[in-house]
């Protein structure tokens, strides 16, 4: 039996989702069509929108269905940047590439980026943010900060950020892909302008996601066409996908604190938990193993039938030093020796024990390479 501890990369469809999704897939009708079939699809879509809005604590009109996290982040960042007058983007170097690369693209289009520094616990300095806003709020197009880091599980105090940004009238976007469903992400109370989420980290299908766009916020769309989704996301709406996303979001995640405690207890004698003093969500843990090349760790664990990840992977499948850990001030060697262990509803204590049992030999072998 293979041990799968890479749910933060993607998590298997939950049975509730599979049932609802396959049933909805059998219906015919474009949700925009006038006929009965279309109206049935529309009913599913709008029902899903309401259900997702309830979980996300937002207005149903604030839910913009997309194809997933990458699209949602791109829509928010490029859309807010295009909509706003300023050209300064405030973010950090530990964001997911869906944010980083969108921001770096905008840099080629005239944007200026203020990269907030992170401490070794993965936290920004509120004084630095305050100072930038004090000096440059008029030029600031947006702030983009992920709610939970997908590699380390570290939580950003989003409410503190939005409280500060509100004083200056600067919109805040948060990539909540790793947070949504795993910790309270109450959009109404968050003060966020936009929030990105995805289905497949929650046991929904790949290709489903949403951008929550507050009623007060406008974004310039990436896709132009039929004016669907408040005009922010053109294209025939995926009613079955929306339903599957809503069901995945509604289906509660188990309490992972027991697995977290077990993993920390069993693994920290061998590796260092990168979270440090920072708070993190219990289902994502990241360890560095001194002197061990990350790709060798992955290879050896895979040979032992255990699937984990380094966190970062480029298109060609090359394991690189984690840009997240580098942004937190870790050395190249430390950042190249990281393993991310992430849990899902199917994860058992036996899985964690299997990892802990395999690790001593794996670490010893990897250290020799």
């Amino acid at each position, binding site marked *: 039996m293979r041990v799968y501890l890479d749910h933060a990369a993607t998590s298997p469809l939950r049975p509730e989702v599979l049932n609802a999704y396959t049933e909805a897939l059998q219906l015919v009708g474009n949700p925009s069509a006038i006929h009965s079939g279309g109206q049935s699809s529309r009913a599913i879509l709008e029902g899903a929108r309401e259900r997702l809005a309830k979980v996300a604590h937002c207005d149903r009109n604030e839910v913009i269905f997309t194809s997933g996290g990458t699209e949602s982040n791109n829509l928010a960042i490029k859309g807010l940047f295009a909509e706003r007058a300023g050209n300064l983007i405030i973010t950090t170097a530990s964001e997911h590439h869906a944010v980083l690369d969108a921001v770096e693209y905008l840099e080629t289009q005239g944007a200026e980026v203020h990269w907030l520094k992170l401490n070794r616990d993965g936290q920004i300095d509120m004084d630095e943010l305050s100072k930038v806003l004090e000096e440059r709020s008029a030029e600031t197009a947006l702030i983009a900060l992920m709610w939970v880091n997908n590699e380390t599980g570290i939580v950003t105090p989003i409410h503190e950020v939005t409280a500060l940004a509100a004083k200056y009238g600067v919109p805040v976007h948060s990539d909540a892909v790793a947070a949504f469903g795993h910790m309270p992400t109450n959009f109404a109370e968050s003060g966020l302008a936009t929030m990105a989420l995805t289905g497949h980290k929650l046991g929904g299908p790949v290709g489903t996601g949403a951008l929550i766009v507050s009623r007060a916020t406008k974004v310039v769309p990436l896709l132009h066409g039929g004016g669907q989704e408040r005009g922010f996301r053109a294209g025939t709406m995926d009613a079955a996908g929306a339903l599957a996303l809503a069901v995945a979001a509604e289906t509660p995640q188990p309490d992972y604190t027991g697995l977290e405690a077990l993993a920390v207890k069993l693994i920290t004698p061998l590796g260092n938990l990168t979270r440090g003093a920072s708070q993190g969500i219990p289902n994502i843990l990241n360890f560095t193993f001194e002197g061990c090349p990350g*790709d*060798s760790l992955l*290879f*050896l664990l*895979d*040979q032992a039938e255990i699937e984990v990840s380094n966190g970062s992977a480029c*298109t*060609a*499948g*090359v*394991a*690189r030093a984690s840009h997240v850990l580098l942004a937190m001030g870790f050395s190249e060697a430390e950042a190249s020796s990281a393993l991310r262990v992430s849990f899902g509803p199917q994860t058992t204590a036996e899985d964690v024990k299997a990892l802990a049992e395999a690790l001593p030999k794996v670490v010893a*072998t990897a250290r*020799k*390479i």
Partner: protein
Amino acid sequence: MSGGVDSAVAAARAVDAGHEVVGVHLALSRNAGTLRTGSRGCCTIEDSMDAQRVSSLLGIKYFVWDFSDRFKEDVVDEFIAEYEAGRTPNPCMRCNERIKFAALLEKALSLGFDAVVTGHYATVLTGETGELELHRSPATAKDQSYVLGVLTGAELKHVMFPIGASASKADIRAEAAARGLAVAQKPDSYDICFIPDGDTQGWLEDRVGAKPGLIKDRAGNVVGEHEGTHGFTVGQRKGLRLGRPAPDGRPRYVLEVHPKENTVIVGSQSALAVTELAGTRFTWCGAQKANPEQWFEAEVQVRAHAEPVACLAAVIDGEFVTRVNEPIMGVAPGQTAVIYLGTRVLGQFTIDRTVSAVSVEEEFEAAL
């Protein structure tokens, strides 16, 4: 697995032979291109994906191992340094010596593997003394034993060339097609993989920079000017832009490159021929020759697809010396000389010095 047809079929045959195989693609560039262009390069993402696709069709696992730092240090930087030193390096040999059968092999052995399997055309046989020997491929047109000349006896124990004895590349392509591998008709790679546009001189100039100097003949007469010695290779005829014609009116060729003096020496084609090649950086491929300090008959090959030529060879005062029976052309310091005993690869050395077949006096007398 480069993503090409040879390593694909080699992997397939290793699987058929019952080995536990994983596919490994080497990431040798930090900025891999997305798609292949022409016949150059072998580290694009397209190549990686091709190798991955072959692996999945063979039912084996696939990994990309990043040796880009080692490759830069041991192959690319050395390539530049060799040109800067006036030599003509062979980066593919260096890659075999330092990466494929060194870094990769070491890592594989550390991870518990027994051997590195590649799609090279060469064979490993057991010699009379029971030691492993590297031999030419029977498919002489594709024989790649030259670029494997850097292998040592210890490395030969951990290499496998499943297609090494194949009759022809066409057979390998046909086998790949029969196995349903999409890379069956993929073009061969040529040239230097890290210079994707093939413009070696331009690539070097970007890294070394222009440094104008003089072009002289062997008698010391200035016959022209150059923009930097890295732009010249022994045997080169084109691009010399010499103002003064040669005394005999015949074309002149680059005979020597001296970066320290920033001078390029040119002369007649006949002066290009050399009778002796020698180098101190040598390795034995498997068992070394008994009493190598005594002259023995062998063959020497100076380029991947050059004809081997008969020679006398010996190791004299730590230098591997070969004296060819008939003078040979197109030999530049930095190139690798691979020594053969029949089909067996005996060893190799990097050429440090050559002796011209024609003395300076002879060259200039002939012109008069």
